[in-house]
């Protein structure tokens, strides 16, 4: 066993892996944000609340209809995604032509309302949700004990992230979507229903948030404020990666998870500031973010 900066290497490997796991959550959440911003030009501040709704939906499904973790992983994102689509149809669609600020204010207001309602009904302490039977236990990797559930988080997150990236960047559907963002009138002329595509895209982005929420429910406290605590960090991730850049959001999500994990070893007190320090530096050097395109 050798040491790096006074920390045993085995401990360091463990921390790197944990950073990667946390990065999985950042990546999933920032991916949804990046999709919504990249395709709709909306800064979706209710993303944290929608993440929270995903976790709450999982809890309610279990409580009232006996649906366990695995069905909830599909059902909860679909349900929350539908609420997202309703919001898009009723409110967001009127704001595309206006400044970013209007979308931001609307979604921020929605987030506060959703959180307030949840707190009113469920209180702030949180709701119980346990790890599914099939993912309990863990593997001893020698340098650390890796719970099976966390391993699953990494696998699921990587799959979803790169699947989304592939669909948007490499398929015909994605090409249509990107074209619709560039020039909606022209794409309409080809017989594609652009407004419906935009609605589905927002629904998908929201469903991604809810999916992350279900993933988080067994390991983090399921409480109304769980989203607002995380969302600021996730916004920093998106800004560092470059607003609207899908690949940027994924890579920065994982990368920052690792950096934050290492900070927790070397200087724990700074672990929730380090991301913002990085954000400030990145913005100074590359104002469009690491993977962003200058417009």
């Amino acid at each position, binding site marked *: 066993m050798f040491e790096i900066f006074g920390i045993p290497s085995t401990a360091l490997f463990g921390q790197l892996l944990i950073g990667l796991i946390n990065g999985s959550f950042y990546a999933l959440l920032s991916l949804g944000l990046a999709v919504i911003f990249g395709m709709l030009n909306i800064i979706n501040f209710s993303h944290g609340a929608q993440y929270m709704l995903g976790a709450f939906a999982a809890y309610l499904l279990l409580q009232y209809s006996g649906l366990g973790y695995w069905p909830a992983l599909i059902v909860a994102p679909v349900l929350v995604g539908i609420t997202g689509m309703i919001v898009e149809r009723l409110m967001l669609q009127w704001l595309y032509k206006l400044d970013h600020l209007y979308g931001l204010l609307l979604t921020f207001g929605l987030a506060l309302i959703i959180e307030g309602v949840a707190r009113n009904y469920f209180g702030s302490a949180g709701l*119980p949700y346990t790890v599914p039977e099939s993912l309990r236990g863990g593997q001893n990797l020698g340098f650390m004990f890796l719970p099976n559930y966390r391993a699953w988080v990494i696998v699921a997150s990587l799959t979803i992230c790169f699947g989304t990236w592939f669909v948007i960047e490499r398929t015909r559907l994605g090409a249509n979507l990107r074209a619709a963002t560039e020039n909606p009138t022209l794409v309409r002329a080809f017989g594609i229903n652009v407004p419906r595509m935009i609605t589905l895209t927002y629904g998908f982005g929201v469903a991604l948030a809810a999916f992350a929420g279900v993933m988080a429910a067994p390991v983090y406290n399921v409480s109304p404020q769980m989203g607002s605590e995380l969302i600021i960090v996730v916004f920093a991730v998106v800004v560092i990666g470059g607003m609207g850049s899908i690949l940027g959001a994924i890579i920065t999500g994982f990368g920052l998870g690792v950096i934050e994990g290492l900070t927790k070893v070397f200087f724990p007190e700074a672990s929730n500031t380090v991301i913002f320090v990085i954000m400030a530096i990145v913005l100074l050097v590359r104002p469009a973010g690491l993977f962003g395109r200058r417009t």
Partner: protein
Amino acid sequence: MKRTIGLTALAVMLACGTASAQQVNVKIGVLSDMSSLYSDIGGAGSTAAAKLAIADFTKANPNVKVELISGDHQNKPDIGSQLANQWYDVDKVDLIIDTPNSGVALAVSQITTTKNKIFIVSGAAASDLTGPKCNANTIHWTYDTWMLANGTGKALVKTGGDTWFFLTADYAFGHALERDTAAAVEKNGGKVLGKVRHPLNTNDFSSFLLQAQASKAKIIGLANAGGDTINAIKSGAEFGIVKGGQKFAGLLVFASDVNALGLATAQGLTLTETWYWDLNDANRAWTKRWQAERGAAGKFPTMVQAGVYSGITHYLKAVVALKSAADGKAVVAQMKNTPTDDALFGKGTIRADGRKLHPAYLLEVKAPSESKYPGDFYKVRATIPADEAFRPLKEGNCPLVSG
């Protein structure tokens, strides 16, 4: 006949006259976390408890008129201070009560003494409130870090948990709790192997838990509260902390936290509280009334909320005895001079440094199979008598005592 009416009228007037002479007006402010991580510990539940206390007291003493307001300090000392100033100066509040979050409580305590008002702390934990930072206008009611540390720390060291690692919330409360527990552990022959200080509202504890695991300490002391404690225990279960032979000590765990964890995750956790809703019939009856007032049948009151009830009851007694709430120091002195007695905490006293004394209970979270009905969370492992539960007067370094 006319004369009788005249006499009756005179008698009524006289009666009213004496009543209005004794009429005492009091204004109480519940300053709490209404919207964030401690809002289930205090919050609207504290306001409900305050309403019950006022209703009970004014029923027996109709000449006392109590007005109740409440406010949200958002866990920010600056906002809490500003509210306290406004309440005392503009709204003419006589008593501020509750105030979870030690950072806010320490700030409000200072303001209270400069304005000669009264501050009863039920929600905050830092034992400094009756230690170096004590003053003649503040009473620390329900619990404090020393009592938590001493109750849980001592019990665990005595049953073999003699090596400790701390996960500490990085602010006044966490530091105080860690310091007091470390002292209790070392005094009883245990050893502290390490600690890590995490920011308030940390989402993921796995990194810190790995460090705790690597320390090989038998006990992982959680010097934090609310969502932080829940997240730490939840991740701990996943990382096999308890299966690996280590044990969590929840240094500040409330019934609402146990509910959020679920008994399956929380079972076996040892903790200390001064009040538990299911301890006796009086508590159970009060809990029913509280649930009705709060409009939440599935929720259970915490010791902080019970403390608000108890604190206001004793305060109002002192105000009636003095017939005035104007002089904060005089009311506090009166409160210290008379023993406390209420339905929830029973008989007790308030010490010169502002510390309210009552017994504490060492509790253990039940396994799911032992829990018979909703809210059936704890087994009582031991009762710590009032004179042992809190820090001895001379060890506190309170300027009021040492002069």
